[in-house]
């Protein structure tokens, strides 16, 4: 068998081998059970609580959880704005990079506190090392914040009636210290041994073999890349992200980085099974997510390995597949695998340029973000999936003529309204954003010529991708888009903000309200949710919502481009 394909299969197997035990561990972390690592982490956590003046055993209801979450996010927003607009004179700036303009700082700030990591700047030229470190801070804590929100929903799904859903800071601190920090450290060390830099010196100047003088950007890359991959952050240290040979030097680091993308999102599903003591439910959810993932993955790999038909027309062989925007050390299959990994989760790092991929792969990448629940971002991916479960329970309930119940709790009008609003919010943000941008462009293509790097259908895809990535809090891009303008910075920033916080507020509110309801024990009339049939029902709901919402837009972009390829 082709070694590119066996490489992909090996990466997937490695992922499962690590994610299942990690899921159990995460489950223990959230339910405060004993683990082997308590000796190190309990004192560390206590130090966090003590220095912050927090009593981690105070119980919160869902409203208090959200209040704590939003308050700390506002603090992060202010901190980031302050640093990014003043980088030029602050310390750790050996390359003399400039401060950000207000609109770019707004976009970058929102993008990093929301775990999106959309980048309208390029790291080498637009960031000081202090700026990079502050962004790295958000890569830890925004991921921890998403996991904490997810933990609240997990705990709320337990079979009991209560409004006491644990403590936000407890979930947050533990997610950061006991999951993200140790894993990042391990990854960073692996990168160090493979030639990823970790230095605070500025650019180096060398002479090439042919005699050209070139500069090489350096920086504290290894520490940064580790958490970038693990926390579904995705914002690269360098402009071209993990295509850069210092950010991702070889196939081994590529394997580690790829596995890290899906590791925590997959583990969260198994953590759910552990916390609720419902392993079968976890496997059903995993099955639905995996089915969606594979349906996007397989055709992407096939088209990328086959190559770009337009290049074949020029009379060129493509033994390695479509190679524009790709690196020889990864190859087409591993690049397509990464592309679907990074878009199904809300990671958004890349090891090949999505803008240059074949139209079919571009579409599947967009679909991954449009659904945004096939594993999804750390924590928040499950929250999106939870919304689809609620919809599926309600629709199935109507079909068989029973009161819709999920895990012993009645789903009523109020929860359904919230679920519908959240489910429709995502297409609304993407399509309205793209429509406005297209309108502006179409009415004055010469004035906005710098926006699009490619003409025709592909140009439309660039705009559609940008809003899809923003709303899904993904952060990858069709990077040909000339997006560092006030219009793109501000409009994407707003889409990211809404696309982050409402989909956290909605599911936490639903779960909180359900937890407060009377528990109805399972009976013969209960709709079982841990069966394959119900899994298919959820999948159908996802497919229908995604297909109906996005098909027209996709038809104008990647689908039209695909059929124009000769």
């Amino acid at each position, binding site marked *: 068998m082709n070694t590119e394909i066996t490489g992909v299969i090996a990466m997937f197997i490695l992922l499962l081998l690590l994610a299942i035990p990690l899921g159990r561990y995460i489950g223990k972390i959230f339910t405060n059970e004993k683990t082997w690592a308590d000796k190190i982490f309990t004192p560390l956590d206590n130090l966090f609580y003590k220095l912050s003046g927090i009593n981690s055993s105070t119980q919160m209801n869902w409203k208090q959880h959200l209040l704590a979450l939003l*308050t700390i996010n506002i603090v992060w927003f202010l*901190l980031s704005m302050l640093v990014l607009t003043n980088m030029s004179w602050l310390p750790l700036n050996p390359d003399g990079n400039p401060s950000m303009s207000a609109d770019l700082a707004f976009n970058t700030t929102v993008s990093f506190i929301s775990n999106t990591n959309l980048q309208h700047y390029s790291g080498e030229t637009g960031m000081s090392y202090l700026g990079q470190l502050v962004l790295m*801070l958000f890569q830890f804590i925004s991921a921890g914040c998403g996991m904490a929100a997810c933990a609240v929903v997990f705990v709320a799904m337990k079979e009991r009636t209560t409004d006491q859903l644990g403590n936000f800071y407890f979930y947050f601190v533990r997610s950061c210290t006991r999951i993200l920090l140790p894993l990042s450290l391990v990854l960073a*060390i692996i990168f160090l*041994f493979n030639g990823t830099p970790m230095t605070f010196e500025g650019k180096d100047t060398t002479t090439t073999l042919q005699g050209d003088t*070139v500069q090489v950007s350096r920086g504290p890359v290894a520490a940064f890349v580790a958490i970038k991959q693990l926390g579904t952050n995705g914002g690269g240290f360098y402009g*071209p992200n993990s295509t850069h040979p210092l950010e991702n*030097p070889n196939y081994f680091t*590529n394997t580690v980085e790829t596995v890290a993308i899906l590791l925590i999102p997959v583990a969260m599903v198994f953590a759910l099974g552990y916390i609720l003591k419902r392993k079968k439910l976890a496997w059903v959810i995993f099955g639905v997510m995996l089915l969606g993932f594979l349906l996007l993955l397989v055709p992407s790999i096939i088209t990328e390995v086959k190559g770009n038909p337009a290049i074949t027309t020029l009379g060129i062989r493509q033994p390695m597949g479509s190679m524009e925007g790709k690196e020889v050390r990864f190859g087409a299959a591993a690049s397509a695998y990464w592309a679907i990994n990074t878009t199904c989760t809300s990671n958004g790092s890349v090891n090949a340029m999505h803008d240059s991929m074949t139209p079919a792969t571009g579409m599947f990448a967009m679909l991954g973000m449009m659904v945004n629940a096939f594993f999804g971002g750390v924590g928040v991916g499950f929250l999106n999936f939870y919304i689809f479960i609620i919809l599926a329970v309600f629709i199935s309930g109507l079909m068989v003529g029973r009161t819709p119940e999920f895990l012993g709790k009645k789903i009523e009008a109020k929860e359904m309204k919230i679920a519908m609003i959240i489910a429709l919010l995502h297409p609304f943000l993407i399509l309205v954003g793209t429509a406005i941008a297209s309108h502006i462009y179409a009415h004055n293509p010469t004035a906005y010529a710098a926006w699009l790097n490619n003409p025709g259908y592909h140009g439309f895809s660039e705009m559609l991708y940008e809003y899809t990535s923003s709303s899904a809090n993904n952060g990858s891009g069709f990077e040909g888009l000339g997006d560092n303008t006030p219009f793109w910075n501000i409009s994407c920033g707003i889409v990211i903000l809404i696309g982050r916080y409402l989909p956290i507020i909605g599911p936490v509110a639903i779960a909180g309200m359900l937890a407060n309801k009377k528990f109805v024990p399972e009976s013969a009339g209960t709709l079982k949710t841990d069966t394959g049939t119900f899994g298919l029902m959820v999948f159908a709901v996802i497919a229908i919502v995604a297909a109906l919402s996005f098909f027209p837009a996709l038809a104008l972009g990647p689908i039209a481009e695909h059929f124009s390829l000769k």
Partner: protein
Amino acid sequence: MKQHLLPAIRLTIVCIIVFIVIYPAVVWGIAQLTPNKGQAATITVNGKKYYTNIAQRFTADKYFWSRPSAAAYNAASAGGSNKGPTNPGYLKEVQLRIDTFLVHNPGISKNEIPSDVITASGSGLDPDISVPAAMVQVKRIAKTRNLSEATVQQLVQQYIQQPLLGMMGTQRINVLQLNLALDNIK
């Protein structure tokens, strides 16, 4: 909100200390124990230092060429072309690269050129080329350097890096290492 504000600020400060002071300091410390000491991998030849993993521009006929770079091989501002697969302007550029390649490699026909020779990498700094991409340049190198094709071919064979564990990924050749070895042939 008020009751959460002070803990939020204090917690953020603790996070700053742990995640962007202690964590990078630890990684930096460990870096000093690694072979590269936290620097990117380099090769030193005749007292000159080269970055192993950063592509260099090779235009001379006596050297194997790296893949085209949309970033002009600038390792302080890397990037890809971001051209879409159907972009007519892009396809013209590719055609131009094919023509240039054919002019410099007489005796090679178009269908012998593998695609990585005429497409730009994602970073613009791809240090590697595929095996066919090296083989297709052997004739030119041998002629320019007055070597037999077999000698050059043998050298190329020597520098093929196999897939990880023999079963994961691609075969590739580091262009810089290959060219340094070429210069070494007496």
